[in-house]
């Protein structure tokens, strides 16, 4: 696995080549290239291409899978009915030179399948993740600070109530588990605020909202209004 990852990084040029440390890798690579031609390079390229998009990788991998299945069937047919294809082999082509070339071309048919296998062993596709924007981090910190404040206030009050109860020998009520209040709005209404980048379209003839700069720019009719 480590070797595979290192080979891939070397192919991609992400890791600088160190002859002293990487000679086993290079030896393996030379052996693979001698045996299969540019198969590994092509498989690496396919894997990188599929993993290159973070939002549409599913479609690319689906295409690669379809290619892999098709090419495997073609390779199987070529092997099964090789006698039929060999009769078209030009006799003028010398076997010593052309057979390896033919073999390498045959190996290339396995490149999508190898790319899928490499992805299984060493996944390079990273699905999208939602992250906090700087403004949202600030908002989160404000919320956390206010929650801490509220908790402190509540605990102070609870202590006071307990102290009073102890004084009067009354058992204090057990603290109820805090439940997060669920937003009662339907999801599309609740989502309106964060997704709503554009201001709502004004009715015809109405004045644009003076609070929004973007709003005013968009609604201007003349160049002077826009700029």
């Amino acid at each position: 696995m480590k070797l595979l990852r290192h080979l891939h990084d070397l192919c991609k040029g992400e890791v600088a080549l160190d002859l002293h440390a990487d000679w086993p890798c290079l030896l393996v690579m030379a052996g693979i290239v001698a045996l299969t031609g540019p198969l590994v390079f092509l498989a690496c390229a396919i894997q990188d291409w599929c993993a290159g998009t973070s939002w549409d990788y599913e479609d690319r991998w689906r295409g690669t899978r379809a290619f892999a299945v098709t090419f495997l069937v073609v390779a199987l047919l070529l092997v099964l009915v090789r006698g039929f294809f060999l009769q078209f082999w030009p006799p003028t082509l010398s076997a010593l030179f052309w057979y390896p070339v033919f073999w390498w071309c045959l190996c290339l048919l396995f490149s999508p399948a190898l790319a899928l296998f490499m992805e299984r062993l060493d996944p390079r596709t990273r699905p999208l993740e939602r992250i906090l924007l700087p403004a949202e981090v600030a908002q989160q910190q404000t919320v956390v600070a206010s929650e801490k404040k509220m908790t402190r206030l509540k605990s102070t009050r609870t202590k006071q109530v307990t102290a009073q109860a102890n004084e009067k020998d009354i058992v204090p009520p057990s603290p109820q588990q805090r439940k997060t209040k669920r937003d009662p709005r339907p999801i599309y209404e609740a989502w309106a605020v964060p997704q709503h980048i554009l201001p709502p379209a004004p009715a015809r003839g109405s004045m644009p909202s003076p609070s929004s700069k973007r709003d005013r720019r968009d609604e201007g009719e003349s160049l002077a209004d826009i700029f």
Partner: protein
Amino acid sequence: MGRFLALCTLLADVLGLAASYVAGACIFPAIGSILPGWLSWLRDLCVHLYQAPLFWMSLIPSMPHALPLALIHHPGLTWGLVYLCAHLWYLTRYLWRRCRETDLARPQPGAPGGRRWEIVQRRYADFREALERFRPEIPLKTPPTFRFFERKNHRDARAELGWRGRVLVIDQALLSPERQQELAPGLAHQLAYYNSEDLWFRSFLNCYPDGFLWVQCISGICLWLPTLVKLCVWPTVYWRGRVLVADRFAYYCGQGYLLYRHLREQGAVEERRSFWSPDPLRAERIEHLEALLGSEFAWMERQGIAQPVPPLAQERHRLKGG
């Protein structure tokens, strides 16, 4: 997937060529041989109509004599040649349509550019801003320019937003300040095609006919075979799914809610779809967007950054429920 489907379309094309050859070489001669005697004049007429142009062709001095002779002896070759010529015609027609811009106006780029130019650039900036909330980064590729057109009448069936080759074409009405809420989600949806391989695949498919011609079907020119794949197989197998993917891209660009609202507003219109339609049902798109928006909202709630419920909305909801 587009590349694989393009390869499949090419295979269908080669099959169509082979079928045309077989039609010319075997099927039509076989039909001619089984015709009854009283219809022999029809056979002779067909043979004459077929051979006469080839005979005149052989009289052209620069024409190699072997070609007309080969075509006379092997009618399948003629069918194959006609097939290729038909292909060339459709390809030329597509390229001509793509290059012809008599009805399209160019916006004025600059910093700042023309009014329409600035409106579109502002939308791109909005999309880039919204895409920053995801990691790994989604690089947004935008077309270098666009064209706009003015709809002359209601019979003009052009889409408000679309592509002509790799050029974005927008209805001028959509670029008005009042319709920005419609432009933004539509633009984000279309950019999904530009940022994937779909635009290339669509251009490739546009080199094939847009419909079936009865002449092709009865004459044995099997160009209908790749056309069948283009019009009947790929819409159901591929394009419906891609519309949903483009919706998802619009959501990544921060236009999920606007697109959702836009689709919901269209909900009152009765929805009809043919079996081969490339569009998914509107309800399906709405459901898909609801899932995306809902997931992000739940995530925001977990992070504690969801917008607080305004008391008025809460009260209204309570009243509705009660």
